[in-house]
Structures are given as C-alpha cells and as structure tokens.
C-alpha cells in the first residue's frame, strides 16, 4: 500500500484509530446538515434532513416504503448527490471529493445494497474477495477472511457456487459478507434481513454487533422490528422524506 500513500484521501479514519477526545463525546463519522434530495423532475425523496452518527454506534433507520431510506444511504456512499445541504464523512465534505478520493472513501464504507448488486456468474468467494482485492489485500488474508465470514453466515457449503444460483436469502448474506469483508469504519446495510428467516437474521445481527465492537459504525435501514425493538441503539424514522428521532 505504500506507493499509494500520497493519493490517499484526507479521510483516514480507521476502526483502530483512537478517539481524539477520549471524553464522553465520541468522534463524528457521518454528519448531514439540512440535506434535501429531489429526483428530477419532482420526487422529493429527502427534505431538510440533519443527522449525525458517531464512531462505534449502531443506528436504525425506519420508515414506510418509499420514505427515502435507500436514498439517504446512497447519498452517504456518493451514489447520488444531494440537491441541497452538506454531507461530511470522517470530516470530508462529500461535495468536494474528486473521483479517486471518492473511491478511497468507498473503500472505507461497506455497503450491503437492498438489491445486493452481486455478480451472478462469479462464485460466492469471488464476489466477497473482490471487495478486498480492490484494496490490494494479499491473497492469504483474503482467503482467511472470506472463509471466516462464510462460516459465520452458514454459507460455507456454497463457497464455489455462482452467486446467481443461490436462493435470495443466501444472496443477501453474501452481500452482507461483502460489506463486512474489510472491517470498514462505516457499514451501511439496506434492509439486510428482508429475505431472511429469524434464525439467519440473528446470525447476521451477531455479525453486525461483532463488527460494531471492533469499532465500526453501522447504519441499518430496516422494516424488521425484531432487530431493533428493545435495543438501546439510536433509531430514526423517515416520514415522507423528513427525519425524526424515535428514541435516544
């Protein structure tokens, strides 16, 4: 990685990074200030959303279908640009990133998309390994991590099957494994348990909690009450594009 140090973005937070304050205020990882997103011509997906997530937090995002959850997550990994407002991740203003800096940022965000976005002809292994390959991790490390993740999500049997030939629930878990592969400082999971039965759901949540303990901030958009009810984690609700805090 050393030859890349010079073009590494200023966004350099890492799970192992020490909190800069060590006080009761943890460092801010995601910050949205009055963000509005309008899909042309007139679909207002987000309206004046302000929102903060800190290092090591788990945040749940709920809301009716079409409320704007996916849009919010897409803004964070810069798949969409806000119409108005400021988005900062790890202190970097997303509006000011160039192409390569965006990619470096994305390497530090693990995303489990609602529609998975796997490569159907590639094997499960290859799909997960890809996320680590783009960061030039070495082969041994990749293999070890992939096997470990598949074990945790009970997918070991499917390792060499093409992703397109898995059941939807299996695909969903592969998408989650891919998001978690690099132990990134920020994980976005969009409806990660929509196709999963209760038992598999708890496996996935265990993985998230584990990642969280190792320092990752996790934002989960979900309709599944069972995964957030009765927890102490922050919970926000989107209502027709407007964000409201549910508990604290």
């Amino acid at each position: 990685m050393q030859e890349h140090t010079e073009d590494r973005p200023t966004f350099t937070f890492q799970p192992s990074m020490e909190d800069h304050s060590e006080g009761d205020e943890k460092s801010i990882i995601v910050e949205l200030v009055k963000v509005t997103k309008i899909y042309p011509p007139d679909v207002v997906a987000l309206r004046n959303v302000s929102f903060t997530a800190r290092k090591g937090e788990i945040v749940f995002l709920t809301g009716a279908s079409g409320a704007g959850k996916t849009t919010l997550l897409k803004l964070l990994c810069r798949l969409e640009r806000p119409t108005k407002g400021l988005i900062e991740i790890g202190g970097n203003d997303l509006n000011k990133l160039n192409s390569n800096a965006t990619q470096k940022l994305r390497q530090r965000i693990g995303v489990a998309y609602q529609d998975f976005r796997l490569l159907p002809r590639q094997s499960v292994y290859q799909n997960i390994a890809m996320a680590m390959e783009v960061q030039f991790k070495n082969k041994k490390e990749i293999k070890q991590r992939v096997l470990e993740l598949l074990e945790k999500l009970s997918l070991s049997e499917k390792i060499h099957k093409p992703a397109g030939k898995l059941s939807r629930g299996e695909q969903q878990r592969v998408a989650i494994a891919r998001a978690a592969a690099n132990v990134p400082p920020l994980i976005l999971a969009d409806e990660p348990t929509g196709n999963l039965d209760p038992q598999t759901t708890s496996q996935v949540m265990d993985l998230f909690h584990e990642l969280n303990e190792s320092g990752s901030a996790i934002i989960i958009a979900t309709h599944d009450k069972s995964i957030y009810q009765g927890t102490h984690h922050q919970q926000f609700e989107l209502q027709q594009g407007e964000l409201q805090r549910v508990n604290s």
Partner: protein
Amino acid sequence: MRLLTFIFTQTGRNVLQSWGLQLMTLLTVTLSVLIFSFFYLIYVNMVQTGVRLGEELRLIVYLDSGLTADEQILFTKKVESFSKVDKVVFITPDEAFAQLRDQLGNDRDVLEDLDSSFLPYSVEIYPHKDLKNLSRIKDFSDYLENLPGTAKVQYGHGWVERFEYFTKLLRFIVIISGSLLILTTMFMVSNTLRLSLYARQKELKVLRYLGATNSYIKGPVLIEGFLLGFVGAGIGLLSLFSLFQWIKSHFAGPSLVNLFKLNFLPWSHCTAILLCSVLLCVLGSLLSIRKFLKI
C-alpha cells in the same frame, strides 16, 4: 508493484472468463485489419503499376526531311533545354525501323524486303513526371508541333486516354470500396466493443461501488485493448502476407513480370497499420469504459 500484479492477474482472469467474447472481438479486429490492408495493398500496387506504365509514355517528333545534321542536333538541344522534359533520344531511321519491327511483333513479316529509308528522322521525348496528364501532354504536343523543323508530333492518344480513364475508374472503385469498408469496420469494431461492454458493465459498476480506483479499472482494460489491437493486426497482416504470397506464386506470369510486378506493403506501412490498430483498440476500450469512471 502490487497494482501491476493485480492488473495482470485481473487481465488474465478477464480473458479466461470471457474468452468467447474476446475471441470474437479479436476476430473482428483481425478481419478489419485484413480487409483494410488488403485494399491498401491493391491500391499501392495499382499506383505502382500506374507509375511504371506512365514511365513508358513518350512523344515522338518526326523531323522535316530537309533538316541538316546540325539543325537536327540543334533541335534536340532545344527540346532538351525545355524544363519539363526528362530525356530526349535522337533516333535514326534505322533505329526507328528496328523499333517498328519490335512493335509489330508477330506481324513483322510485313516489313520484310523493305529498308529503313522510307522512315524519317525522329526524336523521342520522355516528358517530366508532372507532365504526365492528359491535358498537359496535349498542350506540350501542340507546342512541339509549332517548333521549326517539326514535321509531325505523335503520341499514344488512345493509350494515354485509356490509361487515364482506367486508372481513374479503378482508383475510384478502390477509394469508394475502401471508404465503405473503413466505415463498416469502424462501425463493427465499435459495435463489438459495445457488446463486450454490455457483458461487463455490471462488473465494472460493482467494482466502482466497492471503491476500485481508476487505475484498477483502467489497467486491465488498457492491456486488453493493447493485446487486442496488436494480436488482431498481427494476425491480419500475417494472413494478408500468406494470401499475397499465394496469389503471387499462383499468378507468376513470366511474360508480364514487368508490368504487373506485385509488391507487398513496405515494413514502415505494416508497422503503421499495427500501431494504428493498437491505438484505435486502446482508445476504443478506454472510451467505452469512460462512463464507468464517473460513477
């Protein structure tokens, strides 16, 4: 270093994974180069044959029979000094007679029992290259006609006209079919690239989502483009060469060697074609993934 290793691994993997498509693209490039260079070869040989034929063009001035030897030499000098003339040859009736016999070929029997005396003295004029054009030759001939001492100017009207017409037509046909082909070829290669793009756009998109840098994505595509252009053009040129050799050995007409001497494209042209192919393939490939670098 790691980047390079990854890029090469990635390229190898891509080629192996979609070898069917890759082969098709390669075939497209090969065929295109073959067709293009085939036509270019025809064109080059046509031009060369034209030049060779043009070199045979000359005007003959028959001199007044009353001219003295000195006047004859003076006349020759005069024409020689004219800047648009390459070479002037003075011809005695004997030489002219011999020439005529050659010209008549198998008909030469008609000249038996005759001697050269009935032929006039004449001067053969080889005009300068830039004069080899129907209308200019005509003007030049008129000019010579008016020189004192000229009895008659003669040149192969029909031959020049025919030749002019024929090369014009042929050049025209070659140029039209050539442009049609180049159009088609470009269309074809870009189609094929689009096709292979379709097959891979999902992968490229996903790589971008995962944070692949520009060089990570460009690298393999660049190498593939290079290989495609190089191997494709190489095979195309080699096929053309074999084809050329075959035609040549098949059509080695000894009596015509001089007129229809076929030449292969010179090294420099082959290299240029190869380079162009590589350049176009690399550019095309890069262009085709450009939009993904914006994701």
